[in-house]
């Protein structure tokens, strides 16, 4: 049977997130509680979390989370990493035995910084350099898979129900100002650890619910720019698209949303002149990055979150606000279970980006 990466697997899902605008750090317990309520939206074939602000002591270093199928893959990968990075710390990611989570790969964490000389030789920006090495590991080293590569953030994922995955990784022992979670409902078995969400590249992480019909159009376009879609999942391609638009094309998040969930032409025609021109420009220039089909995505990045629904709003997503905290989830119950009393609860429109960033202090 083909596993993820060899075959494209559609899946349904649940997403949830908690974001503290004041940057107050809190443990991963709440996010586990939140995603657990939506147990029925997952089928035990994938769950995961991203936490931001969890590695303050190593915040200058890229935190690489890596799955290894076996020890030889680990050796090969570490040899590779040593050639390109200064590894300041490495350890097994602490886990706890959970009955339903089995067949775990070797899960390691490295805090690294690019080797100065190698970076200079490459003539690349530091971010680009890291991205390039991540792709090299993921495409060239069999049995090794870097699933998290940002600074002061980390992704934790596995095959299992999300609440079990959270406990497996002992997320109650981490503290972050922003958490996202994902429960997966892939339409085949077995799910693969690497195929679980969130999907990350540098400090972008994406959890996503939906099955985008534009997948191959998006993939074949983005692969022109050095990205390699090894997992064949929507989330992976969306992550690369966001990286391309935000980091490489220097678009704002609003502009990025106007590309991937572009307003309809008839809506654009009725906009005031300057808006109309901007939207026409973005839609035309990045037409291959339009996403069609249902999706609700939560994009995490250093200091902020963007939530976005497809332009027809074919997937549910609600936003709750209470004091400094923002909650965004597939279902209201996932918010109410951790924040029963809210200042505000609302459902974003299709294609309307919802962006929250840390208050500047």
């Amino acid at each position: 049977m083909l596993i993820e990466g060899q075959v494209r697997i559609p899946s349904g899902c649940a997403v949830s997130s908690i974001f503290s605008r004041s940057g107050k750090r809190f443990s991963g317990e709440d996010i586990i509680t939140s995603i657990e309520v939506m147990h029925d939206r997952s089928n035990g074939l994938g769950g995961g979390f991203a936490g931001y602000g969890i590695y303050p002591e190593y915040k200058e270093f890229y935190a690489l989370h890596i799955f290894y199928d076996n020890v030889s893959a680990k050796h090969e990968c570490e040899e590779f990493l040593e050639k390109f990075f200064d590894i300041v710390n490495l350890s097994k990611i602490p886990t706890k035995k959970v009955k339903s989570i089995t067949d775990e790969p070797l899960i390691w964490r490295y805090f690294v910084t690019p080797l100065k000389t190698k970076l200079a030789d490459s003539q690349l920006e530091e971010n680009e350099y890291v991205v390039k090495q991540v792709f090299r590991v993921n495409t060239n080293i069999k049995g090794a898979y870097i699933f998290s590569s940002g600074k002061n953030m980390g992704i934790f994922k596995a095959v299992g129900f999300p609440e079990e995955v959270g406990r497996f990784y002992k997320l109650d022992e981490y503290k972050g100002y922003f958490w996202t979670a994902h429960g997966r409902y892939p339409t085949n078995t077995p799910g693969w650890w690497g195929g679980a969400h969130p999907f990350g590249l540098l400090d972008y992480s994406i959890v996503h619910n939906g099955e985008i019909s534009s997948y191959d159009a998006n993939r074949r376009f983005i692969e022109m720019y050095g990205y390699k879609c090894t997992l064949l999942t929507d989330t992976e391609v969306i992550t690369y698209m966001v990286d391309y638009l935000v980091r490489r094309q220097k678009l704002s998040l609003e502009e990025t949303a106007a590309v991937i969930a572009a307003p309809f032409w008839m809506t654009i025609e009725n906009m005031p002149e300057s808006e109309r021109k901007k939207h026409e420009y973005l839609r035309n220039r990045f037409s291959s990055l339009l996403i069609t089909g249902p999706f609700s995505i939560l994009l995490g990045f250093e200091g902020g979150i963007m939530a976005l629904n497809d332009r027809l709003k074919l997937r549910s997503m609600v936003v709750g606000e209470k004091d400094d905290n923002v909650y965004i989830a597939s279902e209201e119950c996932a918010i109410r279970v951790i924040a029963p009393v809210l200042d505000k609860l609302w459902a974003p429109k299709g294609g309307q980006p919802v962006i929250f960033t840390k208050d500047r202090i």
Partner: protein
Amino acid sequence: MINYINPQYEVERDADRCIKCRVCERQCANLVHLYNEEADKMISYSEKCVCCHRCVSLCPTRALKIVKSNNTFKENANWSDQAMREIYIQAESGGVLLSSMGNPQPFPVYWDKMLINASQVTNPSIDPLREPMETKVYLGKKAEETVRDENGNLVCNTPVQLELSTPIMFSAMSYGSISYNAHASLARAAKELKIYYNTGEGGLHEDFYEFGANTIVQVASGRFGVYKDYLEAGAAIEIKMGQGAKPGIGGHLPGEKIVGDVSKTRMIPKGTDAISPAPHHDIYSIEDLRQLVYSLKEATAYKKPVIVKIAAVHNVAAIASGIARSGADIIAIDGFRGGTGAAPTRIRNEVGIPIELALASVDQRLREEGIRNEVSLVVGGSIRNSGDIVKAIALGADAVYIASGALIAMGCHLCRSCHTGKCNWGIATQIPELVKRLNPDVASRRLVNLISAWTHEIKEMMGGMGINSIEALRGNRLMLRGIGLTDKELKILGIKHAGE
């Protein structure tokens, strides 16, 4: 003299239904039908019949049909009737065989070996009657870098584009190869549909300058009718390097057809043969092409996208890659089944490759080289229905060119006798009495109907796939599956087999 060739098609007249109205006689330019007063009977001379069905269509009592003759040579799987007939013709004429319209040989039609996907359960299909369904397409180079002004606003640095309401255009057919009324019909339909038609290499009749905003003006190797006002009249300029029906050879419009306005529009004396050389004699390599592209851009102040049209030949991917780097904004590829007003039969039947394979390999190659955004891809060469269009776009085309389909909509019955100049449907002729048979009021309406109908169908198929904008279909090869194809064919098309 011995008559070696018997008619392939025969006129069959139902004597019970024929009322001797003589409409068939009046409508046949080939003089197949004749009323014989003595016998008080309509007589048919099948040997003159080209099977264009004009008489069949106009017979008010449906008394006529054209049937394949059951007169046969001794059956031979090697020496087909066609092979023998061609030899008889050439043994008599000593000349090159001429044919018209697209390659009719039984080569594989890959469109018919691909199937389209639809949503079930995990992803909803979208009803185009209830939700917006977008088919608008821009053709042209896209900017690679984001530029902002001092206030941080995006600067629109998109090079000049063509905007199409639906991804279909009428491809090049020259005034001369088709009639004034056929051109008028295409121009009017293109304007109403918010798409484009293409002048072909015969220049632009002065009456049609008013349709300039929906016109692509062509610059071919003969440079007929090309001058400043012509270049400026169109919305885009197409350099014709090749044609699918006759890759590697030029064109020849005989002097008899260079009459009146055709001569004026082509800017050549009446009665002289209009010979388009096989190559452009100022383009012997890719760097020369680049010079012509930029000459045309300079001449039109960089306000018109430049299209380079090539025939699909064996090395098409590498050629397209070169063109993408030549400054061209759009590449048009014409497959070996594309039509023609006249071509040597052997060239038409034996040269070139199918557009499906050419498109797949060009799109893939441009992506591998990271330059797919430098150009738009337009493909033609026998697009027969909206299914073909959906498949072409999913393989990677931005839009399609149709010509044979458009002619059929106007009445053409593919009798493939354009080269005789006696088109009974008023399309491929310059004889005034025949030209007037094509009333642009009727023909433009039929063209608009066809493209509107296809657009509806494209929307239905897109909706079925859960796609509500055509750009999300472009290059979306996962939406296709092959049926009955070899591994090699699947690999070239970049698709999986049905069931995978």
